[in-house]
């Protein structure tokens, strides 16, 4: 019996939590979320290198919340999601029991925000090198080449909103794109509607994205959506010294300011 199964069994037994969000084996070698409440379900829990999904989006889901006090198996991105959600008043301290899976398979438990913050201070939170390379490749293009690149990518979009549904930070009940007075974002999945939607979403995630990559993973049309928000991470860090999801009481980069913020384009 793995440490994880032992731990979760104990948590459920002593009623620390009512349900635990973890991973189970899915179809065709996929890994998927499981909401563990019973002994049978506990036995299905797995933990391996393929368990990369950021499960925190489920913490915002109505019917999952209804299961009672939740525990969650978290990776680094998930910890940061929790911090960012906390800073936006969506999760209260102590509301969620967090088990973190270390690289060696051991578990660290977090019962409060402070300990997560401390942990994150010494943790690598950067984006992957291949993502960095892709961004660099795009940045090396001309403006027009980039336009054509994204045009081609957005053309594929079918507005299924899987990116939004998978994103832990897209917890709004009514997204801007669902607002129709005025209809800021065309509902239609034509070129303009797609561009508007993805620009809007990227902008709303600027300074909030914790680079978990769920949007791109979720996209059935294989659009590299994560690059849009990832690209903004380093300028926001460099210009405003802000990184999303590092502290539970952090100020959002775009709702604060410094009188001497630097720019070079305003005349």
């Amino acid at each position: 019996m793995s440490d994880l199964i032992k731990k979760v069994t104990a948590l459920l037994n002593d009623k620390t939590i009512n349900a635990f969000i973890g991973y189970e084996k899915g179809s065709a070698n996929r890994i998927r979320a499981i909401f563990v409440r019973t002994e049978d379900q506990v036995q299905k829990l797995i933990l391996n290198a393929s368990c990369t999904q950021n499960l925190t989006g489920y913490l915002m889901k109505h019917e999952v919340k209804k299961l009672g006090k939740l525990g969650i198996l978290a990776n680094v991105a998930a910890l940061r999601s929790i911090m960012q959600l906390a800073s936006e008043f969506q999760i209260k301290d102590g509301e969620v029991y967090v088990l973190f899976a270390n690289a060696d398979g051991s578990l660290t438990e977090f019962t409060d925000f402070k300990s997560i913050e401390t942990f994150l201070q010494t943790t690598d939170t950067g984006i992957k090198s291949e993502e960095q390379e892709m961004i660099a490749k795009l940045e090396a293009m001309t403006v027009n080449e980039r336009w054509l690149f994204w045009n081609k990518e957005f053309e594929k979009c079918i507005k299924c909103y899987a990116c939004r549904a998978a994103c832990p930070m897209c917890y709004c009940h009514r997204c801007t794109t669902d607002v129709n007075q005025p209809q800021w974002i065309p509902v239609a999945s034509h070129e303009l509607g797609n561009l508007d939607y993805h620009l809007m979403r990227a902008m709303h995630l600027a300074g909030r994205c914790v680079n978990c990559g769920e949007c791109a993973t979720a996209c059935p049309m294989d659009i590299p959506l994560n690059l849009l928000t990832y690209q903004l991470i380093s300028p926001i860090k460099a210009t405003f010294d802000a990184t999303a999801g590092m502290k539970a009481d952090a100020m959002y980069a775009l709702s604060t300011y410094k009188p001497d913020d630097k720019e070079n384009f305003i005349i």
Partner: protein
Amino acid sequence: MSRIGVFVCHCGENISATVNCEKVAKITGELKGVEFATDYKYMCSDPGQTLLKEAIKEHKLDGVVVAACSPRMHEPTFRKACAEAGLNPFLCEMSNIREHCSWVHPKDDLTTEKAQDLVRVMVEKVKKNKALNSIKVPVTKTALVVGGGIAGIQAALDIANCGHKVIMVERQPSIGGHMSQLSETFPTLDCSQCILTPRMVEVAQHPNITLHTYSEVESVDGFIGNFKVKIRKKSKSLDEHLCTGCGLCTTKCPQKKIPNEFERGLGFRPAIYVPFPQAVPNKPVIDREHCTYYIKGKCKVCEIVCPTKAIRFDQEDEVIDVAVGAIVMATGFDVLKTDYFPEYGYGKYADVIDGLAFERLASASGPTQGEIRRPSDGQIPKKIVFVACAGSRDPAKGIEYCSKICCMYTAKHAMLYKHKVHDGIPYVFYMDIRAGGKNYEEFVRRTIVEDETQYIRGRVSTIYEKNGKLIVKGADTLMGGIPIEIEADMVVLATFFAEAHPKLKPVETNTAGIFLAGACQAPKDIPESVAAASGAAVKVAALFSNDELTRDPLVAVVNRSAPPVYSQCVGCFLCQSVCPYQAIEREEIKNRNGEVIKTLARVNEGLCQGCGTCVALCRTKAIDIHGYSNQQVYTEIMALLND
């Protein structure tokens, strides 16, 4: 279906010289929803406004666009006219076809087309306008007066005599301000204390005035009519109710050699002290920085000698919250710091003093009992130099404007000196003599002619000490700029004031309900300070003459809907962190059991000033702002770009 009226103003020829106003009216009259369109010579004139009102009634208009000058100029005019015709004033918009069109473009088709575009934008906008009602906020009819100098005293008494409550806050242990330091006042040479003291007492005894001395304003929140102020009452180490003001403690205090601020450092005071004999309230405070007990933990002589046992060493600062409807800032001034005048040796040579210090020397209640004796050795100076414009009218010192009152007080100083030291010679270096005011010119003349003061037009370049004398070097520009050198016994600098500008968050830029009085605004002499104070008091009284204030309802609002959604708001409160007015509040939605089921943002419309920063940031578009709503601006963009 809208019924919009378009009124195109010629503004005489200001608009019609380059814009074809008839054409603008004709073309925009064809827009969907426009019921009536016309052009007229002067829309803002009486007949113009009548035309507007008649058209509203006749054509049953539900929206009005006036194409004329800048809305910053006449928007209130036309909104008022609409209201008089029974149309909600917020259904009226203006297109700026003068400042933004006719005045900046040549007479050609493009200019007329631009005017049409600008009108079309407003026609489409006004279709999305909503009838709004002005916001009413109650007025707390208590005024806060910050500063207990002559301006503050005057303002407080005037407001109190109008029947309103006043709270006065003074930083020093006593009210009276700088005027209490003055010896005599120009141009009548009345005794300053004699005029001031009765007014100070009147403040203390006035049933409508609450006085907090040795206190400072810590924070101001809120808005006109409804300020919330925190006042820190610094500990006086004294039970004021028990203290009779007998003064025994001040005479017995072993710590006696503390430079006296009131005397500009020319005299000394003990650690427990009353700043000056006529102080109001006439009760001492302990200066904890210098008190032996607070420094060494031993002494308590004052406690021992106090007949009423009023000393309280463990007393702490008290912070009180008060609600006021208006604030009068009468924080006065400070004399410019000494490091502004290194070339004059100010702060370096004991006998180079500023004007206020000279007032103390000349004062009968001052450190020398009114005898002019120089600080260094107590000798009576036989040659004295007064330097006017020290620091003012001098860009190099950062202050380009005239300090205005120095000419008069320098003349007064020279005169007082001559009256007290008959054989002495007063010199005055000046740039110009600015003696505008009743009996002022005569006063200066008297100084020059009767009191034989040597007026030299020129600037002093440097002052240095040599053999116990102060060498004053300057030039006489009326004598072709010949160098002048005077061996003086004492120098008085008519130094500039550093006005104590109010710095109040969060209302530092929007000061509705906050008024300025006295020298905190600009250099003023006593009559001017008093006049400004009375002016501010009238403003306050006018404000307090209403039970409610009305203001434009162009504020943000968070949408609400039926359960279970309640609002599009998800409660991320990013709006709260951008709001410069703390106008975003948290509203908890509770179920029947009293459990919180949702927390929403809510706008306090009394606090909101309508900047709309929250609106731009809201991801769910739950916040919108009246007058510049999402619908309105979106429509404006579409209308502008789709002709």
